[in-house]
């Protein structure tokens, strides 16, 4: 395991914060408050503690850890990044059962993290954050939760996740439908699909995993598609026993494999992030895959994307095309006019009637607004500051909101590599930032506005040359086409920018008033 203790991280003498590992009453002040007990929140807690920051509390609105992977337990749910890379390098798992593990196994891994790093006692479940306000003179954040508690912290790490709020589509008459409704992120495991007529709305990353499973059970499945995505096959395999044994005995072998996977993904950026000859080659290969799977020219036309590869998320599946051609499955590409008590009315005038409608319509990704009210310096409001699109410095800090750190903040999303690679880089940066805040006993650690602006000007300039900004509509962009989601570069570049915490980019104010602990 890596040692990430921060060099020079020693508290000044006057900072008499007692390292106390026992759970604290929620109203007591903590050094670091983490919002969310998903991958990012738990990873941050692990690395903070490894760096010597122990006075940490995690607020979790649910009753269990796991975040996105706890919520997304629909049939067929799996990660589309190889598990050896979709896990923490500092907590590798030699026992992955498949190359692309299912959501249950990933959730199991997250639970193991809690056990292995003894995180359970840091987590306060059922704590839904409703807002937070910065007390500038004291250098403390007051974080309010739905049950009326106020948690106080020197630093807050917002790990609520970009994919945490399920999004229902804006379909006229949605509320009039009287059949059963299921959202992919809130799966109803008690519903029996056998013999039922089922609709699946949406053809994104969740849908292409759900439909092949539903086709095996339901009497009829109709899939409503607005825009087809680029689909590539998934090199899925059962992990051989010898590799599990090897990785368990020689962790360096697993690290080497992980490194190989990293560079394979990294090379794909050349086709996915920017338009290059490799983009055309990859598009051609995916068209060939489509042609080999779908013989009917009209269905193939319906499934052929009309945007550049990478502009929207690439879909990875071995059974999506096969499922759509199953005798009990039909692809509907007519626009949806609205919903009726019995089903979905499409613009070609037909009412498609169903027992159950599955909405695989993704998440309400916060691109222009904060997930809950955040009040920073001088009463400024993050929602207003982000009204025209979220911006931050290196995706982690926002000027005017001192001592707050974000995971998967603005312009941190990967299009070609594992989210966990980016997450680890963010966590490392946050640990260094928290180290500076506590080590130098600062009341305020606030990124300078001109630094943030220069960073974002550069990001937006670079984004203009990427496939995400090449003209298609996607969840990466706001309604106005502003991209506050993706990082325009290689994961290597991202890691490099996060490797150093540049203190000069921040305005600091030393702590003058100490709160009793």
């Amino acid at each position: 395991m890596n040692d990430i203790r921060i060099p020079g991280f020693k508290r000044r003498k006057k900072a008499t914060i007692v390292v106390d590992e026992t759970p604290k009453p929620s109203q007591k002040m903590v050094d670091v408050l983490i919002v969310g007990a998903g991958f990012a929140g738990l990873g941050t807690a692990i690395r903070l503690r490894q760096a010597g920051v122990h006075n940490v509390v995690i607020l979790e609105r649910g009753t269990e850890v796991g975040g996105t992977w706890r919520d997304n337990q629909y049939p067929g749910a799996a990660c589309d990044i190889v598990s050896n890379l979709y896990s923490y390098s500092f907590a590798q798992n030699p026992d992955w059962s498949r190359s692309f593990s299912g959501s249950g196994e990933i959730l199991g891994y997250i639970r193991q993290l809690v056990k292995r790093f003894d995180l359970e006692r840091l987590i306060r479940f059922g704590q839904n954050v409703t807002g937070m306000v910065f007390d500038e003179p004291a250098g403390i954040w007051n974080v309010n939760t739905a049950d009326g508690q106020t948690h106080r912290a020197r630093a807050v790490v917002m790990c609520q996740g970009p994919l945490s709020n399920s999004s229902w589509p804006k379909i006229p008459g949605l509320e009039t439908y009287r059949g059963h409704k299921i959202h992919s992120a809130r799966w109803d495991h008690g519903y029996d699909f056998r013999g039922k007529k089922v609709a699946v709305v949406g053809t994104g990353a969740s849908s292409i995993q759900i439909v092949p499973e539903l086709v095996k059970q339901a009497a009829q499945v109709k899939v409503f598609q607005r825009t087809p995505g680029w689909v590539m096959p998934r090199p899925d395999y059962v992990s051989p026993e010898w590799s599990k044994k090897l990785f368990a005995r020689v962790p360096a072998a697993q690290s080497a494999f992980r490194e190989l996977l990293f560079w394979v993904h990294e090379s794909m950026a050349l086709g996915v992030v920017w338009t290059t000859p490799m983009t055309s080659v990859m598009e051609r290969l995916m068209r060939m895959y489509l042609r080999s799977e779908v013989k009917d020219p009209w269905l193939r036309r319906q499934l052929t994307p009309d945007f550049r590869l990478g502009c929207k998320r690439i879909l990875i599946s071995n059974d999506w095309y096969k499922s759509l051609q199953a005798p009990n499955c039909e692809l509907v590409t007519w626009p949806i006019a609205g919903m009726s008590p019995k089903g979905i009315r499409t613009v070609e005038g037909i009412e498609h009637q169903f027992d159950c409608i599955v909405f695989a319509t993704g998440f309400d990704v916060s691109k222009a607004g904060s997930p809950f009210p955040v009040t920073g310096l001088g009463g400024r409001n993050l929602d207003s500051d982000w009204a025209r699109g979220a911006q931050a410095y290196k995706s982690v800090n926002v000027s005017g909101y001192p001592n707050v750190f974000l995971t998967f903040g603005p312009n941190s999303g990967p299009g070609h590599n594992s989210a966990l690679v980016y997450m680890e880089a963010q966590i490392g940066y946050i640990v260094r930032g928290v180290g500076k805040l506590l080590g130098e006993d600062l009341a305020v650690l606030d990124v300078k506005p001109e630094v943030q602006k220069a960073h974002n000007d550069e990001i937006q300039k670079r984004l203009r040359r990427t496939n995400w900004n090449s003209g298609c509509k996607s969840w990466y962009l706001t309604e106005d086409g502003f991209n506050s989601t993706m990082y325009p570069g290689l994961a290597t570049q991202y890691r490099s920018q996060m490797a150093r915490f540049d203190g000069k980019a921040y305005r600091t104010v030393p702590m003058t008033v100490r709160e009793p602990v």
Partner: protein
Amino acid sequence: MQLELDKMLAKIKDSQWALADIDWDAPGRELVTENKELYPKLKAFMADLMWIEHVGARGFAAMAKKAPTEDLREIYRYFHAEEQKHANAEMALMKRWGMLDDADTLPEPNINIRLVVEWLDTYADDMPLSVLGSVIPMLEITLDGALCKFLLDTVDDPVCHAAFEKINADEARHLGVDFHVLEMLGHGPLYRQTLEFVAKLLDPRLMIGIASYLPLLNKMRDNLVELGLKEEKLYTAVQKYERIGGTPGGRRNPWFRLISRQGRWVIDRANRAYHVPVDALVKLTAKIPPRALPPVPTWVKQLTWKPAA
């Protein structure tokens, strides 16, 4: 004619209707079924009308791939579906009037429709917006418009009128967008328009398309005249295309010029230079055995008269 396409798109979305909104079993069926003289002619007419709508739908599907803006792309997606809805509604009328041989069988398309379907399936997606965007308004205003008007003048069944009230409201929006695009297509330097026009005319794929389209028009005209439609009404419809499309931008569009001129030739029976070869094509195509053509594309099989599925 200038439109704000975003507002038009919102209006289109707000104006949706479904086959289920019409009571297809309401009284009045006998006004058609008991008219022994009208009935057989109307059966052929309805089949033609339904197929014309369906062919128009496929044209819009191709245009959706070419549209230069997101709003226009979305509008064409809707128009594709709405033309399909019109074909479905017309098929539902045929079902009401007992004109379908079998509940699950489509009316047989005539050979010229069949050839146009083949051409659309093979080449429509390769045609530029300038060609499709100029020919679709002509089809909509002459065939669709004149046919619908004629139908309402001829048939008294109130269900038919209820259906066409909705169809015509859709068509009015289609024509609004059609002529907006026709105007838009005339923008740009004239020399470039002319060069592109000439280059495209020499495209063998387009030549095949023209060779399928011309006999279809003559065949339709003959069918209509046989049914009792006055040729003047077609003439009025062609004039309407010229009048509305003849904006400064429209007149700069060589495709508009060609299609207007060709429209005049179609209705001028004295123009032997046009009609002798085209009528010969109609006769020639009539000799093509149906089995010589490949199976109908699967997009045709999406047609249905059933309001619920």
